[in-house]
């Protein structure tokens, strides 16, 4: 029997690396954006007529499954789209939809320690054109928690999926992938009963540099204040959503970064106290062998 592995995220936990590995592994069938390794339903018929030998799992992968965005097309403020908050109700609906459609699937969740996840989340927010500095970003994140929206609530997500998928839920730390990709792949292969396929350790989609994180939000604020007409502003902001800055301002950002590096926003600025409000959201990971070296990252 060929199994189905659904990789649900979280965002910024090495998804690009994993997808490259899925695509290269001879015992896995993966198609970017597709479902169960199929680009569309036609591919089921075609691949069944000419099946691939040795296949053990078909793979579906989207980090949006752990952090769904029901309003992606509604043009909400970029913080809502890219901030670290997740709506628990939306997470539950996606989990139920997956369980209803694919009740026999294995589910892979990759988590990331809180400080690093917040820092990376800030980088994503800035990439998407966010103009808040780190301090305001934290305040907005806290406000999200106060409004009842979840933030990196691993226990909640694990309970959701454990209830529907039982022992077929696999939870792994991003930190292992970051420190030792080969061991990460071996651990996943062991859980799925796969033979070893070495991962390609090329790094893609790296976070913004601390200097860029310092300057981009400031420049984004300037761009937003420029006296454009409505149409031009909309076009510029739409472009900004795909690119941290309008292309014409990139050299300026580079120049500022070189001349005033003191504005850098480094991971060290995020202290343990700042993320203390997230304590108690990763208790299900306590005692998990793969998480023992990273207990501090998860405030365990």
């Amino acid at each position, binding site marked *: 029997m*060929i199994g189905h592995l659904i990789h649900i995220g979280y965002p910024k936990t090495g998804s690009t690396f994993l997808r490259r590995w899925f695509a290269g592994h001879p015992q896995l069938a993966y198609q970017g954006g597709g*479902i169960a390794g199929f680009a569309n339903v036609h591919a089921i018929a075609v691949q069944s007529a000419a099946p691939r030998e040795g296949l053990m799992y078909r793979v579906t992968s989207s980090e*949006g499954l752990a952090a769904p965005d029901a309003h992606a097309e509604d043009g909400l403020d970029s913080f809502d789209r890219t901030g670290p908050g997740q709506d628990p109700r939306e997470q539950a609906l*996606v989990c139920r939809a997956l369980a209803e459609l694919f009740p026999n699937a294995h589910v892979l969740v990759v988590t990331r320690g809180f400080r690093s996840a917040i820092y990376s989340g800030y980088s994503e927010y800035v990439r998407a054109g966010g103009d808040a500095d780190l301090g305001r970003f934290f305040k907005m994140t806290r406000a999200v928690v106060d409004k009842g929206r979840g933030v990196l609530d691993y226990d909640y997500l694990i309970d959701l999926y454990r209830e529907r998928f039982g022992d077929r839920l696999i939870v792994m730390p991003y930190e292992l992938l970051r420190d030792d990709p080969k061991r990460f792949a071996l651990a996943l292969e062991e859980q799925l009963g796969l033979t070893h396929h070495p991962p390609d350790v090329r790094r893609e989609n790296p976070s913004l540099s601390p200097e860029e994180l310092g300057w981009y939000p400031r420049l984004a604020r300037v761009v937003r204040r420029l006296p454009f007409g409505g149409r031009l502003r909309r076009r510029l902001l739409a472009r900004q959503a795909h690119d941290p800055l309008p292309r014409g301002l990139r050299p300026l950002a580079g120049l500022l970064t070189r001349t005033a590096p003191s504005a850098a926003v480094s991971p060290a600025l995020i202290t343990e106290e700042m993320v203390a409000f997230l304590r108690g959201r990763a208790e299900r990971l306590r005692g998990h062998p793969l998480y023992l070296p990273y207990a501090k990252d998860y405030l365990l």
Partner: protein
Amino acid sequence: MSSGDERLPRHLIHIGYPKTGSSFLQRWFDANPHLHYCASGFAGFATVAELAARGSRGDASSWRITSFEGLVTPVESFNPLEGGRPNETLFSNRTSQDRVCTLLGQLFPGAKILLVTRGFRTLILSTYSQAVRRGSARTFPEFCDALEKLVREGEDPYHFDWVIERYAAAFGADNLIVLPYELLRDDSQAFVAELENRLGLEHFPAPTDRVLPSLGGEELYWYPRISRFLRGLSFGDRRRRRLMIWHWRAARRNRLRPVISLLQRVREARPVTDALIPSSLTERLRGRSERLRTLPLYAALGRDYLFDGDEAE
């Protein structure tokens, strides 16, 4: 509000057969507000990102639909041209059918299956029409010979009893809906009402326009001969490929109808009709739809489905 308060839509997989009103059904799936359908997608989702976004909104529809008629007749390629040459794959086979059923059962064990059948004579003729539209150069006798060979080897894809048993075993007999194309052809509103009844849906009217009429008998005779003539011309690969694309497009839209009328006047040929289906083939197909015999909707269709003991017209 807890997500547990909301009723989740179920999943219906429409697997075919080809030439049994799939385009009609897909238009109905698409327009029906109680159904969530996306052409070529899975359960109404084109991509996994869409599943994440729309799945998280909840869903007011009653059923999520996957629909592709080729699921019950899988082949290695559905492209009319392969490497610049016409794809002459005419039939699926039992082994591939079995693999698709296994795969769907493993992936979507909770789904309901919709199978639309069609009486053998019109199914053969219409399948030939589809092959001709795709640029096939096979004549009708050659087509029937190829099918008969598969039937003799037990590898043809038209063993309705086998397909029904296979899907009933994989999904449960209660999760298999089998309906006759003849009902859709004769009374599309009744067909839709029957399907709605089986799915517990509120009524939504059927579309009324016909999308892709089959080719006429004369056209079925001449298109393959034109295709063969064009293939015999000594062109370079590139020019031949362009010519094949032109012919495929012309056949698909029946653009050569005036030329064929002229050819028919110059040299009258016997139109291709189901009367040309050899009795040796129909006799081999007899008794392969016995599971339909007891279904009320098939009661008057014994001759179409070649039930044992019912004489063919």
